[in-house]
């Protein structure tokens, strides 16, 4: 039976809450922004202008300031061990806010919104709420918090995916997303309940301590790990939890596709790293567990199957968004490689890879949007001759794709270099994983190059040769993203140092 807390205990709770609020300022700020956006939408209903989008943009940019201030705070847990603040979480806070801003900018250039929907009211508010949810995902230190934040992100994502209400593809995508999401959340919660049953704890650090102190039934542990992995794997879109992603990526509004493929994946990666690094024991070496299988081996399986499946199935895609969806499955595999080594270098490599993926994937989707604005199509065949008609878009897309393949001198190359370095730094243990990674990236060249192939090598079937311009602001943004992709491929030291700084996680010391 529950007992009512005494007055002193209540006092203690309030004191803890008060002390913790100081660590929670960016989240509070973003929640206020969320409400502000809803109010603005109510007041300025029906007016077609950029008020909402600009407010969101400025508001999100403002949160960067509060996040920056958190660097001076000590790393630690607060809110009764529900929430954590460390360099690792800060990295993702920046990451999600920036990707939210980019999603807003990209949305502003997408003309499909003008055709499909009357009001953008909830849209921007939902993007902000998704940013909050993802920030909380990256900062959760407790099973309950993990579940709540993941659901916050998921529900927002369902709505945003189906935002084109009258578009059948969009609605279908949202429904599929919802069904798969519900199943995998259910599995994950079941996994959580097993872990709670084993340890009677929900805090990650305490779980770890409990498991280490009292031992555990390996069968139950591996089973619950597998169930939890279903939830995380769904978020990062790794095989075999990927089934939703091609349809959702194709059906969702393209800015949301870009946003999901980058930010939502990163949030999943953040959670996965924190959960497995801190909570679940491991032999440090795969194959050393009692069953001969532990979570590292599971991740290895996931990673290999994602790299192979994503890259191979992408070969047959005719729709560019779908093609990029399969490519994002493959990239989930590469990201997992960095987690598998489970050391400081691997964490650094994963974070760095996320940064490169952020830039190149957003870039690629942005160009896809600009092209779709002009041609109204995302089919590979309709890209014919675009290299001549939209020279800058063609060049930019080619750079992003080359970066996705991982060829120098681009950001993506350095990302792959770091990941493979992390693998090879372990000696010959993981060479075979690096080999698979590298062979599949050769395969990926073929389908990525299908896009430049159509843009440059094939002539358009329509014989109008006039140039199409995407408009000045869009051109500039595109050029900036393109130049950054190359610039960070040549001078990546600051970002890499930042990734290293951010690899510090509260509760575990990596080597």
């Amino acid at each position, binding site marked *: 039976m529950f007992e009512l807390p005494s007055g002193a205990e209540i006092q203690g709770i309030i004191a803890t809450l008060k002390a913790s609020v100081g660590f929670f300022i960016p989240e509070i700020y973003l929640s206020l922004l969320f409400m502000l956006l809803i109010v603005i939408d109510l007041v300025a209903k029906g007016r077609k202008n950029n008020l909402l989008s600009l407010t969101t943009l400025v508001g999100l940019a403002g949160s960067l300031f509060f996040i920056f201030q958190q660097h001076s705070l000590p790393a630690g847990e607060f809110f009764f061990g529900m929430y954590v603040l460390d360099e690792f979480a800060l990295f993702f806070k920046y990451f999600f806010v920036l990707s939210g801003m980019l999603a807003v900018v990209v949305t502003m250039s997408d003309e499909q919104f003008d055709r499909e929907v009357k009001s953008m009211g909830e849209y921007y508010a939902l993007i902000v709420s998704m940013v909050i949810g993802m920030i909380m995902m990256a900062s959760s230190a407790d099973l309950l918090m993990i579940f709540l934040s993941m659901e916050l992100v998921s529900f927002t994502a369902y709505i945003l995916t189906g935002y084109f209400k009258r578009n059948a593809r969009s609605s279908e995508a949202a429904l599929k997303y919802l069904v798969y999401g519900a199943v995998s959340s259910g599995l994950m919660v079941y996994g959580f309940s097993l872990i709670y049953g084993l340890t009677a704890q929900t805090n990650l650090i305490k779980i770890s301590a409990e498991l280490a102190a009292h031992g555990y039934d390996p069968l139950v542990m591996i089973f619950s790990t597998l169930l939890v992995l279903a939830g995380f794997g769904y978020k990062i879109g790794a095989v075999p939890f990927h089934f939703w992603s091609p349809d959702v990526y194709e059906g969702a509004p393209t800015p949301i596709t870009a946003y999901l493929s980058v930010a939502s994946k990163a949030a999943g990666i953040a959670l996965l790293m924190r959960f497995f690094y801190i909570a679940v024991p491991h032999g440090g070496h795969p194959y050393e567990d009692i069953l001969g299988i532990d979570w590292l081996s599971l991740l290895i399986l996931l990673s290999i199957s994602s790299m192979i499946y994503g890259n191979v199935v992408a070969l047959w895609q005719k729709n560019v968004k779908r093609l990029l969806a399969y490519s994002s499955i493959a990239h989930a595999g590469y990201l997992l490689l960095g987690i598998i080594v489970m*050391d*400081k*270098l691997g*964490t*650094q490599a994963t974070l760095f890879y996320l940064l490169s993926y952020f830039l190149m994937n957003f870039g690629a989707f942005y160009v896809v949007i600009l092209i779709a604005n002009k041609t109204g199509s995302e089919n590979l065949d309709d890209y014919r001759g675009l290299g*001549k008609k939209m020279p800058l878009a063609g060049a930019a897309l*080619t750079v992003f794709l*080359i970066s996705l393949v991982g*060829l*120098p*001198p681009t950001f993506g*190359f350095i990302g*792959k*270099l770091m990941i*493979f*370095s992390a693998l*090879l*730094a372990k*000696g*010959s243990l993981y*060479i075979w994983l*690096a*080999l698979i990674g*590298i*062979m599949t*990236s*050769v395969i990926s*060249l*073929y389908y990525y*190059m299908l896009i*430049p*192939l159509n843009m*440059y*090598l*094939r002539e358009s079937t329509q014989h109008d040769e006039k140039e199409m311009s995407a408009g000045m602001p869009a051109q500039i943004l595109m050029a900036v993203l393109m130049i950054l992709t190359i610039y960070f491929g040549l*001078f*990546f*030291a600051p970002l*890499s*140092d930042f990734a*290293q700084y951010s*690899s510090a996680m509260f509760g575990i010391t*990596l*080597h």
Partner: protein
Amino acid sequence: MLSLIVFLPIIAGLVILAVPSSQKQIIRIVSLLAALAQGVLAVLIWRGYDPALPGITAGPGGSPLGSFQFVEKIPWISLHLGGFGSLNIEYFLGVDGISITMVILTALISAIGVLSSWTIQKQVKGYFILYNLLASAMMGCFVALDFFLFYVFWEVMLLPMYFLIGIWGGPNREYAAIKFFLYTLFGSVFMLLVMIGLYFSVLDPVTGNHTFSLVAMATQSNYIKDAILGPDNVFWRYVAFIVLFIGFAIKVPMFPFHTWLPDAHVEAPTPISVILAGVLLKLGTYGMIRINFPLFPEVFHAGMYVIGIFGAINIIYGAFCALAQKDLKKMVAYSSISHMGYVLLGLSAGNSEGMVGALYQMFNHGTITAMLFLLVGVIYDRAHTRQIEKFGGLASYMPVYAAVVTVAWFASLGLPGLSGFISEAFVFVGAFSSVTTRPIAMVSVLGIVFGAAYLLWSLQRMFLGQRKQDAAYDLVVGEDGHEHIHFHDWHGKLDLDGRELAMLVPLVVITIFLGIYPMPVLGMITTSINKLVQVLSPVVLSQM
């Protein structure tokens, strides 16, 4: 100096970017000027080069100075890796006897390639931007002494080449372009893994950090004993050697990785064929000499005869394939494979004669094959076909063309007095004097016979005899009462015009001059080759 010669074409490319695409002539002239300036720089480097310094490994005190020349060494990227100290990538350029010949060759072929590109009419701006990017990357590969930098240049070559074949190529260009891209990428991604492995295995003797410097990697005492590619890890050293070798062999191209080459050549426009055969193939063997052999000398020793066997297969198989071709360009492409076999054979001998021969053959093959492809391009421009059977009796109507063809063809088959002879002779001397490769050399000599066969046979069919019934041109009686030939759709000069002569004459002169007096090249390379042979020799290895 070296930075300038590497980045001049890219600068030209940026200038071209600013020129409106309708100004085709300006675009061409900018490219030509850049190529000529590159040539001038190459000559300056050549004049300033001291052939007494060996290169290959570090000089006294572990520093590259005193061994390499025109060294530029600037820290490029320095970053901290968790648990692994700092990652240091250097912008590190320099030449020794092996790279300087290739630098000169690259400058020469790039300039000729620009002249040859004059006839490109489609999307001139895009073409020259990509062309200049390619020229920069090629040059960069030959002077880079940091593995990371080398790799970046190596990969940067691929994309422009893909587009140059894919956009400006022949009817089957899409297939040829992606085949080229996939093949070479497949080779080079393994290089990436080896590069990372080497990085974790080698310490810079001066700073004590891990390093990508090829110069440090070429000294076996810099390796950490139990590191992944350290001397104790024999298995992985063999694996690394083999995958690295395959990566380079694809570029050479060595049998059985050669199948991309005929496709690429047949579809590529003439200037790109010239670049491909003249410079790009050399990168494969250059990579072996610079990276593969000195970094893994003991594996090289164990596998010398295997390399020799593949060289012999290349020589003979290439010659046989060339013999069977109906398309002149395909024949020349296979002759390239055959001639690159001599380079492999010379390298496999492992002695000074063989290696000097191999390197000299690389230079000569660059000039001679460039000539062959240019000549194929000349006739293709006029006749719009390259079928050997569509020609006959050309010698009496196009005497200058026929004369140049004869020089080029004879140089290719190794006639004494022309440069090809000397390099092939060195290769065979080297291969015969090494016990391991002697039997292979004996078999390979057959290649010369077949080489003579396809070259002479094609010469006879195309230039001697009478016009054939279904020839690609008509005979007309001119105003002067003599018979002339007339190509459809060709309004230029029948015989070689000024631009074509400007491309061909320098190559003819070089071929003849270096056939009579090879010392300018041999003098530059001998010291370095001797040093390389010393690095590779079993005596030195056993002392480690």
